[in-house]
């Protein structure tokens, strides 16, 4: 049966709608780093901050060192380091960098509308 779709008036409404719809979903995140470089350290602290702020209580973040488990790099198709992979919810996204740009991270996590 045809469901009634609320009419989208502007982009802000759309955003609200998306957030509303995905608000309860659990986020599965994996952060791949290559050793404890300054970039890695920044990435870990940045992503933790963002998760606490925007995904409080509904995220699962794991930090993996590629030097320890290099075989994972192939399976996860990692090219850059650090790489944050959003495994759930779909679609899969990769956010590369030290996560210093919060805005971009949020876009990557589908918490912000893509410009």
């Amino acid at each position, binding site marked *: 049966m045809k469901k009634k779709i609320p009419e989208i008036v502007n982009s802000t409404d759309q955003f609200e709608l998306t957030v509303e719809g995905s608000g309860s979903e659990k986020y599965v995140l994996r952060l791949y780093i*290559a050793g404890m470089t300054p970039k890695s350290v920044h990435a870990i602290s940045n992503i933790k901050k963002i998760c606490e702020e925007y995904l409080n209580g509904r995220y699962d973040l794991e930090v993996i060192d590629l030097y320890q488990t290099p075989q994972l790099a192939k399976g996860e198709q990692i090219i850059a380091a650090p790489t944050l992979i959003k495994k759930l919810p779909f679609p899969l996204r990769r956010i590369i960098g030290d996560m210093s740009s919060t805005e971009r991270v949020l876009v990557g996590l589908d918490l912000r509308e893509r410009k």
Partner: protein
Amino acid sequence: MSKNKMQVQTQSLPKSPTGIKGLDEITGGGLPKGRPTLVCGNAGCGKTLLAMEFLVRGAIEFNEPGVFMAFEETENELTTNVASLGFNLEDLTEKKMILIEHVHIERSEIEEAGEYDLEGLLIRINFAIDSIGAKRVVLDTIESLFGGLPNVLILRAELRRLFRFLKEKGVTVIITGERGDEMLTRQGLEEYVSDCVIVLDHRVTEQASTRRLRIVKYRGSSHGTNEYPFLIDETGFSVLPITSVGLTHTVSTERISSGIPRLDTMLSGKGYFRGSSILASGTAGTGKSSLAAHLTFAACKRKERVLYFALEESPSQIIRNMRSIGINQEQWVKSGLLRFHSNRPTFIGLESYLTMIHKAILDFKPEVVIVDPISSFIVGANEFEAKSMIMRLVDFLKMNNITGFFTALTGVGSEMEGLKVNVSSLIDTWLLLRDIEIGGERNRGLYILKSRGMAHSNQIREFILTDHGVELRDVYVGPDGVLTGSARTAKEAVEDSEKLLRKQEIERKQLALERKRKALDYKIKELQDEFEAESLEALKAISIDTELSKNFLQLQRDQAVSRKADTDQKHTSLK
């Protein structure tokens, strides 16, 4: 000590053989060992294949495991793609000789958020190399990174690091790159790979496509700088380095029969030189292929192998046609001494055709190669290409001491000796077949335009196709010019009757002479008889006269006595 020093000096750059036919020859032994090589070219020119063959040959022939980092295709796609070229990647992967790793980059999945590097990729490559102990690595095509990662500055810095890392690792690397408009590669990869750059090209001229390879640079090593044609077929990649051939081949003094006794006689009695190049040129229907068939026959009889490239006829057509002049080629095909290759060069392109000829020759190892006709190589205005191709073919055959027999069709009405492609200088023995039109007939004439290294006949022979092969006859050369065919027969008949008449005339004259001699003899006898009779009479008369005068003297003395006359001193002295 000094010996060691010398070795260091003469030792050239260590090289990693590719195992690809021809490529090792023009690179002087392979790609620079432990360094990256850039292979670039347009889409579909065979970059991936060249790289893959490098790994496969390395694994099979040189026992060097290899890693293939595929940025564009998945493992399965690659395996399927190269299986059609005879590479069994599954097997090699199982044996841990080859590792294919697909690097997936999807722009839409990636979000940049801050500083990053490509350590992930380096870790993967490193892990892949270490897991099978790879000596060879292929990155195909690393430019995909530029599509996936927007920050070019980071990327360029990281690529530089990647290549440094690979060099440190001591692996021989092939990096493929798409050809750019201005630069060799779209992203200027040549900037990072400065050791060896190979450009592949795929171009179409006159509807025939040709693949070419050129080594743009090879640091620390000499290399062929020309464009070399290459071919991709069911056995992989092959490059043709023929133009690198020097004119150093040793020649044979052995002679082989042309299959036509009279022709052998014309060629100072023994036929062609083994390993020489022979050209039979002529207008349509002058019997060029028949000469080729005779050579085939003679060679097969000697149990030599013959490779016959038929450019315009199918093998069965040639066999049927040659049967009509009494040459059965089928038996040799069945016994494996004769092999036909029938296809048009325009179908695959000149260079590819040449490569095909090479492969076929290397495969079959013939003593005699026939190309019928070479004029088929010329399509449109590619004369220069055709000549260079024929030149390389001739060189190749000579180098391998293979006798090459080429036929060439000359245009009707054009100069007999003027081939469309000027290859005469490449040819050792040139037989010219021509039509001689006399008395409403077209007859075939053959003469030897040149034949290096032998005292050949300079005469025209009439060339007759009979049901038992080609026959050569002397032509009539007389005050009316050269006559052939029935004109020759007629002229010969006229000559014969003339000869008969002359003979009769001579006999008649001889007879008359004889008669004259006899008459003379008779006359001489008569005169002699007459003379004898006369002389007899004269003698008789003389003796009578003597007697008479004696008597007269006596009478006088008697008278004197009777007259008592004194003796006159004067008279006594007369006594």
